[in-house]
């Protein structure tokens, strides 16, 4: 089971992960990214590259499946305006035992951060907005997996 979903509507983490829990394995690991309450930020706005986004997320799941013994994996990413406190991304991986699911989940979110074509803009309480710069620390985390 390999699922990629780009969503304009709020993400429902439990329903994104429910199918993974029923694959017969003993482990389901997941990561949820949430819009941080940070320096007057009221919401973030996510732009993406339709087509390439889905293909790049699917190829990350393929790479994770080739590297670890997984029963399934899910990547769901929100686009558009997302308010503080709401989920932006949910990644999940299911396996027979925990090590594979935990590592694959970290791999998927770390590589998503540096490879999937999404761009974030912060919206502030005063009505202004600003593009977020990429972080060198994200590159370093993604490189752990190469």
């Amino acid at each position, binding site marked *: 089971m390999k699922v990629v979903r780009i969503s304009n509507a709020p993400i429902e983490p439990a329903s994104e992960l429910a199918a993974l829990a029923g694959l017969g394995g003993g482990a389901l690991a997941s990561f949820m990214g949430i819009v941080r309450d940070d320096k007057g930020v009221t919401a973030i706005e996510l732009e993406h*590259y339709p087509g*390439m986004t889905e293909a790049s997320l699917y190829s990350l799941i393929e790479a994770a499946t080739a590297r670890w013994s997984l029963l399934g994996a899910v990547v769901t990413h929100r686009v558009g305006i997302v308010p503080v406190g709401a989920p932006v*991304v949910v990644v999940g991986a299911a396996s027979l035992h925990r090590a594979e699911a935990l590592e694959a989940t970290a791999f998927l979110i770390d590589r998503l951060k540096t490879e999937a074509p999404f761009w*974030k803009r912060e919206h502030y309480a005063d009505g202004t907005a600003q593009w977020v*710069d*990429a972080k060198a620390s994200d590159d370093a985390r993604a490189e752990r997996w190469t």
Partner: protein
Amino acid sequence: MKLVYFASVREAIGLSSEECDVPQDARSVGDLVAWISAGSQEHARALHDHSRLRFALDQEMVAVDALLGAAQELAIFPPVTGG
């Protein structure tokens, strides 16, 4: 070739996409980006610093020295910030 722009690059150029006739001497992504930059002040400002840009040919991430080959679409954008 179709050119597509995202995020700060799209805003700086003022377009999300445009068509261009690739000049014969443009062999790499970098060659073509340099040629596009010469098109207007907005293009020049958005595209002058290749180190702050990322590129995709036919929706595959590539380096600035990648050859254009028979690609139909070049995307130019800042480093990605999803998740």
